[in-house]
Protein backbone atom coordinates (compact mmCIF):
# COMPACT_ATOMS: atom_id res chain seq x y z
CA UNK A 1 0.00 0.00 0.00
CA UNK A 2 2.83 2.36 0.93
CA UNK A 3 4.66 1.48 -2.26
CA UNK A 4 1.51 1.96 -4.29
CA UNK A 5 1.06 5.44 -2.84
CA UNK A 6 4.69 6.30 -3.59
CA UNK A 7 4.36 5.20 -7.22
CA UNK A 8 0.97 6.84 -7.73
CA UNK A 9 0.89 9.98 -9.83
CA UNK A 10 -0.62 13.29 -8.73
CA UNK A 11 -3.94 12.72 -10.47
CA UNK A 12 -4.42 9.31 -8.96
CA UNK A 13 -3.69 10.65 -5.49
CA UNK A 14 -6.05 13.62 -5.85
CA UNK A 15 -8.74 11.37 -7.32
CA UNK A 16 -8.40 8.83 -4.52
CA UNK A 17 -8.64 11.50 -1.83
CA UNK A 18 -11.74 13.17 -3.33
CA UNK A 19 -13.47 9.84 -3.99
CA UNK A 20 -12.62 8.59 -0.51
CA UNK A 21 -14.19 11.71 1.04
CA UNK A 22 -17.38 11.06 -0.94
CA UNK A 23 -17.37 7.39 0.04
CA UNK A 24 -17.03 8.38 3.70
CA UNK A 25 -19.90 10.87 3.41
CA UNK A 26 -22.05 8.39 1.51
CA UNK A 27 -21.39 5.24 3.50
CA UNK A 28 -20.16 6.32 6.95
CA UNK A 29 -21.64 9.73 7.76
CA UNK A 30 -24.89 8.45 6.25
CA UNK A 31 -25.27 5.94 9.10
CA UNK A 32 -25.00 8.56 11.87
CA UNK A 33 -28.54 8.68 13.28
CA UNK A 34 -30.47 11.68 11.94
CA UNK A 35 -34.01 12.73 11.19
CA UNK A 36 -35.24 11.62 7.78
CA UNK A 37 -34.70 14.72 5.62
CA UNK A 38 -37.23 13.53 3.06
CA UNK A 39 -40.23 14.76 5.06
CA UNK A 40 -41.36 18.34 4.89
CA UNK A 41 -41.67 20.74 7.78
CA UNK A 42 -39.45 18.95 10.28
CA UNK A 43 -37.66 22.25 10.92
CA UNK A 44 -38.42 25.95 10.50
CA UNK A 45 -38.20 27.00 6.86
CA UNK A 46 -35.36 28.83 5.12
CA UNK A 47 -32.94 28.87 8.04
CA UNK A 48 -29.47 30.22 7.35
CA UNK A 49 -26.53 27.88 7.99
CA UNK A 50 -25.85 27.31 11.68
CA UNK A 51 -24.20 24.70 13.91
CA UNK A 52 -27.42 22.79 14.07
CA UNK A 53 -28.05 22.96 10.32
CA UNK A 54 -24.62 23.31 8.66
CA UNK A 55 -26.18 24.14 5.28
CA UNK A 56 -29.44 25.65 6.49
CA UNK A 57 -32.93 24.41 5.68
CA UNK A 58 -35.08 24.40 2.54
CA UNK A 59 -38.29 26.31 1.95
CA UNK A 60 -40.03 23.04 2.84
CA UNK A 61 -38.31 22.86 6.21
CA UNK A 62 -35.84 20.08 5.35
CA UNK A 63 -32.27 19.98 6.61
CA UNK A 64 -30.05 20.59 3.55
CA UNK A 65 -26.97 18.90 5.01
CA UNK A 66 -28.74 15.58 5.55
CA UNK A 67 -30.54 15.89 2.22
CA UNK A 68 -27.11 16.16 0.64
CA UNK A 69 -25.68 13.22 2.59
CA UNK A 70 -28.56 10.96 1.58
CA UNK A 71 -28.38 12.18 -2.03
CA UNK A 72 -24.68 11.32 -2.17
CA UNK A 73 -25.40 7.90 -0.63
CA UNK A 74 -28.14 7.12 -3.14
CA UNK A 75 -26.29 8.44 -6.20
CA UNK A 76 -23.17 6.46 -5.29
CA UNK A 77 -25.23 3.32 -4.64
CA UNK A 78 -26.96 3.56 -8.02
CA UNK A 79 -23.64 4.20 -9.73
CA UNK A 80 -22.01 1.21 -8.05
CA UNK A 81 -24.92 -1.17 -8.73
CA UNK A 82 -25.07 -0.19 -12.40
CA UNK A 83 -21.31 -0.40 -12.80
CA UNK A 84 -21.22 -3.84 -11.20
CA UNK A 85 -23.92 -5.25 -13.49
CA UNK A 86 -22.43 -3.56 -16.56
CA UNK A 87 -18.87 -4.64 -15.86
CA UNK A 88 -19.74 -8.26 -15.15
CA UNK A 89 -21.89 -8.49 -18.28
CA UNK A 90 -19.30 -6.64 -20.36
CA UNK A 91 -16.43 -8.86 -19.24
CA UNK A 92 -18.47 -11.99 -19.98
CA UNK A 93 -19.53 -10.85 -23.46
CA UNK A 94 -16.04 -9.60 -24.26
CA UNK A 95 -14.36 -12.83 -23.17
CA UNK A 96 -16.83 -15.01 -25.06
CA UNK A 97 -16.45 -12.90 -28.21
CA UNK A 98 -12.67 -12.74 -28.00
CA UNK A 99 -12.14 -16.42 -27.34
CA UNK A 100 -14.78 -18.03 -29.50
CA UNK A 101 -14.02 -15.96 -32.61
CA UNK A 102 -15.80 -16.65 -35.89
CA UNK A 103 -19.49 -16.04 -36.28
CA UNK A 104 -20.24 -15.68 -32.55
CA UNK A 105 -17.62 -12.95 -32.35
CA UNK A 106 -19.00 -11.14 -35.40
CA UNK A 107 -22.57 -11.14 -34.14
CA UNK A 108 -21.63 -10.09 -30.61
CA UNK A 109 -19.46 -7.28 -31.92
CA UNK A 110 -22.16 -5.88 -34.22
CA UNK A 111 -24.51 -5.71 -31.24
CA UNK A 112 -21.82 -4.23 -29.01
CA UNK A 113 -20.86 -1.60 -31.58
CA UNK A 114 -24.48 -0.63 -31.95
CA UNK A 115 -24.71 -0.03 -28.22
CA UNK A 116 -21.51 2.00 -28.26
CA UNK A 117 -22.71 4.29 -31.06
CA UNK A 118 -26.41 4.58 -30.26
CA UNK A 119 -27.45 7.71 -28.35
CA UNK A 120 -28.29 6.26 -24.95
CA UNK A 121 -30.20 9.18 -23.50
CA UNK A 122 -33.18 9.15 -25.89
CA UNK A 123 -33.68 5.43 -25.27
CA UNK A 124 -33.35 5.87 -21.52
CA UNK A 125 -35.89 8.66 -21.81
CA UNK A 126 -38.29 6.41 -23.71
CA UNK A 127 -38.00 3.59 -21.19
CA UNK A 128 -38.23 5.71 -18.07
CA UNK A 129 -41.11 7.67 -19.57
CA UNK A 130 -42.97 4.40 -20.02
CA UNK A 131 -42.22 3.34 -16.46
CA UNK A 132 -43.21 6.67 -15.00
CA UNK A 133 -45.21 6.25 -11.87
CA UNK A 134 -44.28 2.60 -11.49
CA UNK A 135 -40.55 3.08 -11.67
CA UNK A 136 -38.36 1.95 -8.80
CA UNK A 137 -34.69 2.34 -8.01
CA UNK A 138 -33.91 -1.27 -8.97
CA UNK A 139 -35.69 -0.92 -12.33
CA UNK A 140 -33.84 2.31 -12.99
CA UNK A 141 -30.52 0.64 -12.21
CA UNK A 142 -31.31 -2.24 -14.59
CA UNK A 143 -32.25 0.17 -17.36
CA UNK A 144 -29.07 2.18 -16.88
CA UNK A 145 -27.01 -1.02 -16.86
CA UNK A 146 -28.17 -1.77 -20.40
CA UNK A 147 -25.83 0.93 -21.62
CA UNK A 148 -22.98 0.15 -19.26
CA UNK A 149 -21.78 -3.15 -20.68
CA UNK A 150 -20.93 -2.31 -24.31
CA UNK A 151 -17.75 -0.31 -23.87
CA UNK A 152 -16.12 -2.70 -21.37
CA UNK A 153 -16.99 -5.68 -23.55
CA UNK A 154 -15.31 -4.06 -26.53
CA UNK A 155 -12.14 -3.42 -24.55
CA UNK A 156 -12.10 -6.83 -22.92
CA UNK A 157 -12.51 -8.44 -26.32
CA UNK A 158 -9.48 -6.70 -27.79
CA UNK A 159 -7.56 -7.55 -24.63
CA UNK A 160 -8.63 -11.18 -24.99
CA UNK A 161 -7.53 -11.22 -28.62
CA UNK A 162 -4.06 -9.99 -27.80
CA UNK A 163 -3.64 -12.14 -24.70
CA UNK A 164 -4.83 -15.31 -26.43
CA UNK A 165 -1.57 -15.62 -28.35
CA UNK A 166 0.80 -14.96 -25.46
CA UNK A 167 3.18 -17.62 -24.22
CA UNK A 168 1.79 -18.19 -20.77
CA UNK A 169 -1.64 -18.92 -22.19
CA UNK A 170 -0.14 -21.35 -24.68
CA UNK A 171 1.73 -23.00 -21.84
CA UNK A 172 -1.51 -23.36 -19.94
CA UNK A 173 -3.23 -24.92 -22.96
CA UNK A 174 -0.44 -27.39 -23.54
CA UNK A 175 -0.23 -28.37 -19.90
CA UNK A 176 -3.76 -29.66 -20.36
CA UNK A 177 -5.83 -27.07 -18.53
CA UNK A 178 -9.45 -26.79 -19.65
CA UNK A 179 -10.82 -23.69 -21.32
CA UNK A 180 -12.75 -22.69 -18.23
CA UNK A 181 -9.71 -23.02 -16.03
CA UNK A 182 -7.50 -21.03 -18.38
CA UNK A 183 -10.05 -18.27 -18.51
CA UNK A 184 -10.53 -18.15 -14.74
CA UNK A 185 -6.95 -18.51 -13.56
CA UNK A 186 -4.96 -16.90 -16.34
CA UNK A 187 -7.16 -14.38 -18.08
CA UNK A 188 -9.57 -13.11 -15.47
CA UNK A 189 -6.84 -11.48 -13.35
CA UNK A 190 -5.75 -9.51 -16.43
CA UNK A 191 -9.31 -8.62 -17.31
CA UNK A 192 -9.96 -7.39 -13.78
CA UNK A 193 -7.13 -4.84 -13.74
CA UNK A 194 -8.52 -3.54 -16.99
CA UNK A 195 -12.06 -3.62 -15.78
CA UNK A 196 -11.36 -1.51 -12.73
CA UNK A 197 -11.04 1.64 -14.81
CA UNK A 198 -14.10 0.65 -16.84
CA UNK A 199 -15.93 0.09 -13.57
CA UNK A 200 -15.17 3.58 -12.31
CA UNK A 201 -16.09 5.01 -15.69
CA UNK A 202 -19.41 3.18 -15.63
CA UNK A 203 -20.09 4.51 -12.12
CA UNK A 204 -19.50 8.05 -13.33
CA UNK A 205 -21.69 7.56 -16.40
CA UNK A 206 -24.51 6.00 -14.42
CA UNK A 207 -24.60 8.87 -11.92
CA UNK A 208 -24.52 11.35 -14.81
CA UNK A 209 -27.35 9.57 -16.66
CA UNK A 210 -29.47 9.33 -13.54
CA UNK A 211 -29.09 13.03 -12.84
CA UNK A 212 -29.87 13.89 -16.47
CA UNK A 213 -33.05 11.82 -16.23
CA UNK A 214 -33.86 13.55 -12.94
CA UNK A 215 -33.74 16.94 -14.65
CA UNK A 216 -36.31 15.57 -17.10
CA UNK A 217 -38.44 14.49 -14.14
CA UNK A 218 -37.93 10.83 -15.06
CA UNK A 219 -36.01 9.57 -12.05
CA UNK A 220 -38.21 7.82 -9.47
CA UNK A 221 -39.94 10.48 -7.41
CA UNK A 222 -39.06 8.84 -4.10
CA UNK A 223 -35.35 8.58 -4.90
CA UNK A 224 -33.34 11.26 -3.14
CA UNK A 225 -30.38 11.47 -5.52
CA UNK A 226 -28.06 14.33 -6.40
CA UNK A 227 -29.91 14.91 -9.66
CA UNK A 228 -33.32 14.88 -8.03
CA UNK A 229 -32.09 17.21 -5.29
CA UNK A 230 -30.98 19.73 -7.93
CA UNK A 231 -34.22 19.30 -9.83
CA UNK A 232 -36.44 19.71 -6.75
CA UNK A 233 -34.56 22.87 -5.79
CA UNK A 234 -35.10 24.21 -9.32
CA UNK A 235 -38.78 23.27 -9.20
CA UNK A 236 -39.19 25.15 -5.91
CA UNK A 237 -37.53 28.24 -7.39
CA UNK A 238 -34.50 28.09 -5.12
CA UNK A 239 -32.62 30.19 -7.71
CA UNK A 240 -35.10 33.03 -7.69
CA UNK A 241 -35.49 32.91 -3.92
CA UNK A 242 -31.71 33.19 -3.65
CA UNK A 243 -31.43 30.00 -1.59
CA UNK A 244 -27.92 29.30 -2.75
CA UNK A 245 -27.13 26.59 -0.24
CA UNK A 246 -30.13 24.56 -1.38
CA UNK A 247 -29.41 24.65 -5.11
CA UNK A 248 -25.67 25.20 -4.77
CA UNK A 249 -24.66 22.37 -2.46
CA UNK A 250 -25.83 19.49 -4.72
CA UNK A 251 -24.31 21.25 -7.75
CA UNK A 252 -20.94 21.70 -6.05
CA UNK A 253 -21.04 18.15 -4.69
CA UNK A 254 -21.85 16.68 -8.12
CA UNK A 255 -19.11 18.68 -9.85
CA UNK A 256 -16.54 17.65 -7.23
CA UNK A 257 -17.61 14.01 -7.36
CA UNK A 258 -17.26 13.90 -11.14
CA UNK A 259 -13.88 15.63 -11.13
CA UNK A 260 -12.70 13.25 -8.42
CA UNK A 261 -13.85 10.14 -10.28
CA UNK A 262 -12.36 11.40 -13.54
CA UNK A 263 -8.98 12.10 -11.90
CA UNK A 264 -9.14 8.64 -10.36
CA UNK A 265 -9.83 7.01 -13.74
CA UNK A 266 -7.20 8.85 -15.79
CA UNK A 267 -4.69 8.65 -12.96
CA UNK A 268 -5.24 4.91 -12.66
CA UNK A 269 -4.88 4.39 -16.42
CA UNK A 270 -1.61 6.34 -16.41
CA UNK A 271 -0.45 4.31 -13.44
CA UNK A 272 -1.20 1.03 -15.23
CA UNK A 273 0.60 2.22 -18.34
CA UNK A 274 3.64 3.23 -16.34
CA UNK A 275 3.65 -0.11 -14.57
CA UNK A 276 3.54 -1.97 -17.88
CA UNK A 277 6.31 0.25 -19.22
CA UNK A 278 8.70 -0.86 -16.51
Amino acid at each position, binding site marked *: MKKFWKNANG*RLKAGMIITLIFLIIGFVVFYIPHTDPFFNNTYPRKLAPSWEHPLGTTSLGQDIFWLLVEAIHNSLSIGLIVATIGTVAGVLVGLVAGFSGGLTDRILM*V*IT*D*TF*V*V*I*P*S*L*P*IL*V*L*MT*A*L*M*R*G*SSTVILLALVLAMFAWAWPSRQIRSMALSIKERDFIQTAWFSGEGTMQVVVTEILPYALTWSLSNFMNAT*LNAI*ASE*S*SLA*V*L*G*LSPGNLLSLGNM*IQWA*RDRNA*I*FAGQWFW*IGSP*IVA*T*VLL*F*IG*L*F*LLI*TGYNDYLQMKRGR
Partner: protein
Amino acid sequence: MKFRKYFGLRLVTWALTILIGVTFIFFIPRMFPTDPVENMIGQIQSRSGQMDPQEMAALRKSLRVQFGLEGSLWEQYLAYLWRGLLHFDFGPSLVSFPTPAGEIIATYLPYTLFLSLISTLLAWIIGNAIGLLAGFRKNKRSSKILEGIAICIYPVPYFLVALILQIVFAYLLGWFPLQSNINAMGGTAAYLRSLFRASFLPALSQLLVGTGWWIISMKSLSAATAEEDFVQYARFRGLAERRIGASYVMRNSILTQITALAMSLGGAFNGAIMTEIIFSYPGVGALIQKAILQSDYNMILGCITISIVAISTATLIADLIYPFIDPRIRYS
Protein backbone atom coordinates in the same frame (compact mmCIF):
# COMPACT_ATOMS: atom_id res chain seq x y z
CA MET B 1 -12.04 -2.22 -55.72
CA LYS B 2 -10.85 -2.21 -52.15
CA PHE B 3 -12.27 1.26 -51.85
CA ARG B 4 -15.68 0.05 -52.93
CA LYS B 5 -15.54 -2.79 -50.44
CA TYR B 6 -14.73 -0.36 -47.62
CA PHE B 7 -17.70 1.81 -48.55
CA GLY B 8 -19.97 -1.20 -48.84
CA LEU B 9 -18.93 -2.52 -45.45
CA ARG B 10 -19.51 0.87 -43.79
CA LEU B 11 -22.94 1.12 -45.39
CA VAL B 12 -23.89 -2.33 -44.09
CA THR B 13 -22.74 -1.41 -40.59
CA TRP B 14 -24.72 1.84 -40.80
CA ALA B 15 -27.90 0.04 -41.82
CA LEU B 16 -27.41 -2.62 -39.15
CA THR B 17 -26.86 -0.04 -36.40
CA ILE B 18 -30.06 1.75 -37.30
CA LEU B 19 -32.00 -1.48 -37.64
CA ILE B 20 -30.84 -2.86 -34.28
CA GLY B 21 -31.43 0.44 -32.53
CA VAL B 22 -34.88 0.85 -33.98
CA THR B 23 -35.83 -2.76 -33.31
CA PHE B 24 -34.75 -2.20 -29.76
CA ILE B 25 -36.93 0.85 -29.23
CA PHE B 26 -39.81 -0.98 -30.86
CA PHE B 27 -39.72 -4.06 -28.65
CA ILE B 28 -38.62 -2.65 -25.31
CA PRO B 29 -41.76 -0.58 -24.68
CA ARG B 30 -43.84 -3.61 -25.58
CA MET B 31 -42.12 -5.68 -22.92
CA PHE B 32 -43.07 -3.22 -20.20
CA PRO B 33 -46.17 -3.98 -18.19
CA THR B 34 -47.43 -0.41 -18.61
CA ASP B 35 -49.80 0.17 -21.50
CA PRO B 36 -49.67 3.68 -22.99
CA VAL B 37 -53.26 3.39 -24.16
CA GLU B 38 -54.55 2.60 -20.67
CA ASN B 39 -52.40 5.45 -19.33
CA MET B 40 -53.97 7.83 -21.84
CA ILE B 41 -57.47 6.65 -21.01
CA GLY B 42 -56.76 7.10 -17.34
CA GLN B 43 -55.61 10.65 -18.01
CA ILE B 44 -58.59 11.46 -20.20
CA GLN B 45 -60.93 10.12 -17.55
CA SER B 46 -59.31 12.11 -14.80
CA ARG B 47 -59.68 15.25 -16.92
CA SER B 48 -63.18 14.84 -18.26
CA GLY B 49 -64.85 12.50 -15.78
CA GLN B 50 -66.41 9.10 -16.41
CA MET B 51 -67.44 8.08 -19.92
CA ASP B 52 -69.96 5.49 -20.94
CA PRO B 53 -68.51 2.07 -21.79
CA GLN B 54 -69.36 2.23 -25.48
CA GLU B 55 -67.58 5.54 -26.03
CA MET B 56 -64.70 4.15 -24.05
CA ALA B 57 -64.36 1.05 -26.23
CA ALA B 58 -64.38 3.23 -29.35
CA LEU B 59 -61.77 5.52 -27.84
CA ARG B 60 -59.61 2.57 -26.86
CA LYS B 61 -59.82 1.15 -30.37
CA SER B 62 -58.91 4.42 -32.06
CA LEU B 63 -56.06 5.03 -29.63
CA ARG B 64 -54.66 1.57 -30.35
CA VAL B 65 -54.61 2.44 -34.05
CA GLN B 66 -52.95 5.80 -33.39
CA PHE B 67 -50.27 4.14 -31.27
CA GLY B 68 -49.66 1.49 -33.91
CA LEU B 69 -50.76 -1.25 -31.51
CA GLU B 70 -53.20 -3.01 -33.84
CA GLY B 71 -52.48 -6.44 -35.24
CA SER B 72 -49.90 -9.04 -34.28
CA LEU B 73 -46.51 -8.03 -32.96
CA TRP B 74 -44.89 -8.93 -36.28
CA GLU B 75 -47.38 -6.84 -38.28
CA GLN B 76 -46.87 -3.92 -35.94
CA TYR B 77 -43.11 -4.22 -36.33
CA LEU B 78 -43.22 -4.30 -40.13
CA ALA B 79 -45.67 -1.41 -40.20
CA TYR B 80 -43.42 0.59 -37.90
CA LEU B 81 -40.33 -0.11 -40.03
CA TRP B 82 -42.18 0.78 -43.21
CA ARG B 83 -43.91 3.94 -42.03
CA GLY B 84 -41.58 5.17 -39.30
CA LEU B 85 -38.15 4.33 -40.60
CA LEU B 86 -38.68 4.77 -44.33
CA HIS B 87 -41.21 7.60 -44.36
CA PHE B 88 -40.68 9.22 -40.96
CA ASP B 89 -44.39 8.86 -40.34
CA PHE B 90 -44.97 8.20 -36.66
CA GLY B 91 -48.68 8.85 -36.61
CA PRO B 92 -50.31 11.99 -35.31
CA SER B 93 -49.00 13.86 -32.32
CA LEU B 94 -51.50 13.04 -29.61
CA VAL B 95 -51.29 16.47 -28.06
CA SER B 96 -51.40 18.66 -31.17
CA PHE B 97 -53.83 16.28 -32.85
CA PRO B 98 -54.02 15.75 -35.85
CA THR B 99 -50.68 17.27 -36.90
CA PRO B 100 -48.28 14.41 -37.69
CA ALA B 101 -45.47 14.05 -35.15
CA GLY B 102 -42.96 13.86 -38.01
CA GLU B 103 -43.98 17.29 -39.25
CA ILE B 104 -43.51 18.91 -35.85
CA ILE B 105 -40.12 17.27 -35.43
CA ALA B 106 -39.07 18.54 -38.86
CA THR B 107 -39.60 22.13 -37.72
CA TYR B 108 -37.57 21.65 -34.54
CA LEU B 109 -34.75 19.49 -35.88
CA PRO B 110 -32.85 22.22 -37.81
CA TYR B 111 -32.36 24.21 -34.58
CA THR B 112 -30.82 21.21 -32.84
CA LEU B 113 -28.61 20.39 -35.81
CA PHE B 114 -27.52 24.01 -36.15
CA LEU B 115 -26.66 24.28 -32.46
CA SER B 116 -24.96 20.94 -31.97
CA LEU B 117 -23.05 20.76 -35.25
CA ILE B 118 -21.56 24.22 -34.84
CA SER B 119 -20.59 23.69 -31.22
CA THR B 120 -19.24 20.17 -31.85
CA LEU B 121 -17.05 21.29 -34.75
CA LEU B 122 -15.86 24.44 -32.98
CA ALA B 123 -15.06 22.41 -29.87
CA TRP B 124 -13.13 19.91 -31.98
CA ILE B 125 -11.05 22.61 -33.69
CA ILE B 126 -10.35 24.72 -30.59
CA GLY B 127 -9.76 21.74 -28.32
CA ASN B 128 -7.38 20.02 -30.71
CA ALA B 129 -5.43 23.23 -31.33
CA ILE B 130 -4.99 23.83 -27.60
CA GLY B 131 -4.35 20.13 -26.94
CA LEU B 132 -1.68 20.03 -29.65
CA LEU B 133 0.15 23.00 -28.18
CA ALA B 134 -0.18 21.65 -24.66
CA GLY B 135 1.05 18.20 -25.64
CA PHE B 136 3.87 19.42 -27.85
CA ARG B 137 5.25 21.60 -25.09
CA LYS B 138 4.03 19.58 -22.20
CA ASN B 139 6.51 20.92 -19.68
CA LYS B 140 5.44 24.54 -20.05
CA ARG B 141 3.44 25.94 -17.18
CA SER B 142 0.67 27.25 -19.44
CA SER B 143 0.14 23.73 -20.82
CA LYS B 144 -0.38 22.34 -17.35
CA ILE B 145 -2.81 25.09 -16.40
CA LEU B 146 -4.85 24.60 -19.59
CA GLU B 147 -5.04 20.87 -19.00
CA GLY B 148 -6.07 21.47 -15.40
CA ILE B 149 -8.95 23.67 -16.54
CA ALA B 150 -10.02 21.05 -19.08
CA ILE B 151 -9.99 18.34 -16.40
CA CYS B 152 -12.26 20.45 -14.20
CA ILE B 153 -14.83 21.00 -16.97
CA TYR B 154 -14.96 17.84 -19.05
CA PRO B 155 -16.24 15.30 -16.50
CA VAL B 156 -19.14 17.53 -15.45
CA PRO B 157 -22.39 16.46 -17.17
CA TYR B 158 -23.72 18.79 -19.85
CA PHE B 159 -26.85 19.81 -18.02
CA LEU B 160 -24.88 20.90 -14.97
CA VAL B 161 -22.53 23.09 -16.99
CA ALA B 162 -25.61 24.55 -18.67
CA LEU B 163 -27.27 25.13 -15.30
CA ILE B 164 -24.20 26.84 -13.86
CA LEU B 165 -23.87 29.09 -16.93
CA GLN B 166 -27.55 29.89 -16.70
CA ILE B 167 -27.28 30.87 -13.05
CA VAL B 168 -24.17 32.99 -13.56
CA PHE B 169 -24.74 34.67 -16.93
CA ALA B 170 -28.50 34.82 -17.18
CA TYR B 171 -29.60 35.12 -13.56
CA LEU B 172 -26.79 36.83 -11.66
CA LEU B 173 -25.31 38.96 -14.45
CA GLY B 174 -28.42 39.24 -16.60
CA TRP B 175 -26.46 39.31 -19.86
CA PHE B 176 -28.63 36.73 -21.56
CA PRO B 177 -32.29 35.72 -21.33
CA LEU B 178 -33.05 32.98 -18.79
CA GLN B 179 -35.12 31.09 -21.33
CA SER B 180 -34.37 31.04 -25.03
CA ASN B 181 -36.96 32.87 -27.02
CA ILE B 182 -36.66 33.01 -30.76
CA ASN B 183 -38.46 35.90 -32.33
CA ALA B 184 -39.96 34.74 -35.62
CA MET B 185 -41.71 38.05 -36.20
CA GLY B 186 -40.15 41.34 -37.29
CA GLY B 187 -37.87 40.52 -40.19
CA THR B 188 -34.65 38.65 -40.75
CA ALA B 189 -32.37 40.92 -38.73
CA ALA B 190 -34.49 40.67 -35.59
CA TYR B 191 -34.81 36.92 -36.11
CA LEU B 192 -31.08 36.45 -36.42
CA ARG B 193 -30.37 38.65 -33.41
CA SER B 194 -32.79 36.71 -31.25
CA LEU B 195 -31.44 33.43 -32.60
CA PHE B 196 -27.94 34.48 -31.61
CA ARG B 197 -28.98 35.59 -28.14
CA ALA B 198 -30.96 32.40 -27.63
CA SER B 199 -28.19 30.13 -28.89
CA PHE B 200 -25.20 31.73 -27.21
CA LEU B 201 -25.36 30.13 -23.77
CA PRO B 202 -26.51 26.68 -24.98
CA ALA B 203 -23.71 26.69 -27.53
CA LEU B 204 -21.17 27.89 -24.97
CA SER B 205 -21.99 25.14 -22.52
CA GLN B 206 -21.69 22.45 -25.17
CA LEU B 207 -18.51 24.07 -26.41
CA LEU B 208 -16.92 24.06 -22.95
CA VAL B 209 -17.55 20.37 -22.26
CA GLY B 210 -16.54 19.34 -25.79
CA THR B 211 -13.39 21.43 -25.84
CA GLY B 212 -12.35 20.00 -22.48
CA TRP B 213 -12.41 16.47 -23.86
CA TRP B 214 -10.50 17.31 -27.04
CA ILE B 215 -7.82 19.15 -25.05
CA ILE B 216 -7.32 16.18 -22.75
CA SER B 217 -7.23 13.52 -25.47
CA MET B 218 -5.19 15.54 -27.97
CA LYS B 219 -2.68 16.46 -25.30
CA SER B 220 -1.89 12.87 -24.45
CA LEU B 221 -1.86 11.87 -28.13
CA SER B 222 0.50 14.59 -29.26
CA ALA B 223 2.71 14.19 -26.21
CA ALA B 224 3.14 10.53 -27.18
CA THR B 225 3.76 11.38 -30.84
CA ALA B 226 6.33 14.02 -29.90
CA GLU B 227 8.45 11.29 -28.28
CA GLU B 228 8.58 9.14 -31.40
CA ASP B 229 11.76 8.58 -33.35
CA PHE B 230 10.72 10.38 -36.50
CA VAL B 231 10.09 13.55 -34.49
CA GLN B 232 13.50 13.25 -32.86
CA TYR B 233 14.98 12.80 -36.30
CA ALA B 234 13.24 15.94 -37.55
CA ARG B 235 14.73 17.79 -34.58
CA PHE B 236 18.21 16.54 -35.45
CA ARG B 237 17.69 17.69 -39.02
CA GLY B 238 17.27 21.14 -37.54
CA LEU B 239 13.70 21.76 -38.64
CA ALA B 240 11.87 24.64 -37.00
CA GLU B 241 9.74 23.68 -34.00
CA ARG B 242 6.68 25.13 -35.72
CA ARG B 243 7.16 22.94 -38.71
CA ILE B 244 7.69 19.85 -36.57
CA GLY B 245 4.53 20.66 -34.66
CA ALA B 246 2.40 21.24 -37.74
CA SER B 247 3.54 18.63 -40.20
CA TYR B 248 4.90 15.87 -37.96
CA VAL B 249 3.04 15.84 -34.69
CA MET B 250 -0.29 17.25 -35.83
CA ARG B 251 -0.59 15.27 -39.04
CA ASN B 252 -0.08 12.05 -37.14
CA SER B 253 -2.25 12.63 -34.12
CA ILE B 254 -5.17 14.37 -35.84
CA LEU B 255 -6.18 11.15 -37.60
CA THR B 256 -7.09 9.43 -34.37
CA GLN B 257 -9.12 12.48 -33.45
CA ILE B 258 -11.21 12.27 -36.63
CA THR B 259 -12.29 8.74 -35.73
CA ALA B 260 -12.89 9.95 -32.20
CA LEU B 261 -15.08 12.75 -33.56
CA ALA B 262 -17.29 10.19 -35.25
CA MET B 263 -17.50 8.18 -32.03
CA SER B 264 -18.33 11.24 -29.94
CA LEU B 265 -21.38 12.36 -31.90
CA GLY B 266 -23.80 10.24 -29.86
CA GLY B 267 -22.60 11.75 -26.62
CA ALA B 268 -22.71 15.24 -28.11
CA PHE B 269 -26.31 14.66 -29.09
CA ASN B 270 -27.20 13.56 -25.55
CA GLY B 271 -25.59 16.76 -24.38
CA ALA B 272 -27.51 18.85 -26.87
CA ILE B 273 -30.78 17.43 -25.60
CA MET B 274 -29.97 18.25 -21.98
CA THR B 275 -28.65 21.72 -22.78
CA GLU B 276 -31.75 22.54 -24.78
CA ILE B 277 -33.96 21.48 -21.92
CA ILE B 278 -32.17 23.68 -19.38
CA PHE B 279 -32.45 26.74 -21.64
CA SER B 280 -35.81 25.79 -23.21
CA TYR B 281 -34.08 26.12 -26.56
CA PRO B 282 -36.61 25.20 -29.27
CA GLY B 283 -34.97 21.98 -30.49
CA VAL B 284 -35.60 18.26 -30.36
CA GLY B 285 -34.54 18.14 -26.69
CA ALA B 286 -37.21 20.58 -25.60
CA LEU B 287 -39.66 18.72 -27.82
CA ILE B 288 -38.82 15.42 -26.09
CA GLN B 289 -39.29 17.02 -22.70
CA LYS B 290 -42.66 18.43 -23.67
CA ALA B 291 -43.71 15.11 -25.14
CA ILE B 292 -42.76 13.32 -21.90
CA LEU B 293 -44.71 15.75 -19.76
CA GLN B 294 -47.76 15.28 -21.97
CA SER B 295 -47.27 11.52 -22.51
CA ASP B 296 -47.19 12.03 -26.28
CA TYR B 297 -45.73 8.62 -27.14
CA ASN B 298 -45.84 8.97 -30.92
CA MET B 299 -43.81 12.12 -30.56
CA ILE B 300 -41.27 10.52 -28.19
CA LEU B 301 -40.90 7.53 -30.50
CA GLY B 302 -40.49 9.82 -33.50
CA CYS B 303 -37.85 11.99 -31.85
CA ILE B 304 -35.86 8.93 -30.80
CA THR B 305 -36.07 7.18 -34.16
CA ILE B 306 -34.91 10.33 -35.90
CA SER B 307 -32.06 10.84 -33.40
CA ILE B 308 -30.80 7.32 -34.01
CA VAL B 309 -30.92 7.78 -37.78
CA ALA B 310 -29.29 11.21 -37.58
CA ILE B 311 -26.42 10.12 -35.36
CA SER B 312 -25.70 6.91 -37.27
CA THR B 313 -25.66 8.90 -40.49
CA ALA B 314 -23.31 11.53 -39.07
CA THR B 315 -21.01 8.73 -37.90
CA LEU B 316 -21.17 7.14 -41.35
CA ILE B 317 -20.24 10.42 -43.03
CA ALA B 318 -17.25 10.87 -40.72
CA ASP B 319 -16.18 7.28 -41.49
CA LEU B 320 -16.50 7.81 -45.24
CA ILE B 321 -14.50 11.05 -45.19
CA TYR B 322 -11.68 9.40 -43.28
CA PRO B 323 -9.96 7.60 -46.22
CA PHE B 324 -9.67 10.92 -48.04
CA ILE B 325 -7.71 12.37 -45.15
CA ASP B 326 -5.52 9.45 -44.18
CA PRO B 327 -3.49 8.27 -47.18
CA ARG B 328 -2.31 5.20 -45.27
CA ILE B 329 -5.73 3.68 -44.72
CA ARG B 330 -5.98 0.09 -45.79
CA TYR B 331 -9.76 -0.02 -46.14
CA SER B 332 -10.09 -2.75 -43.60
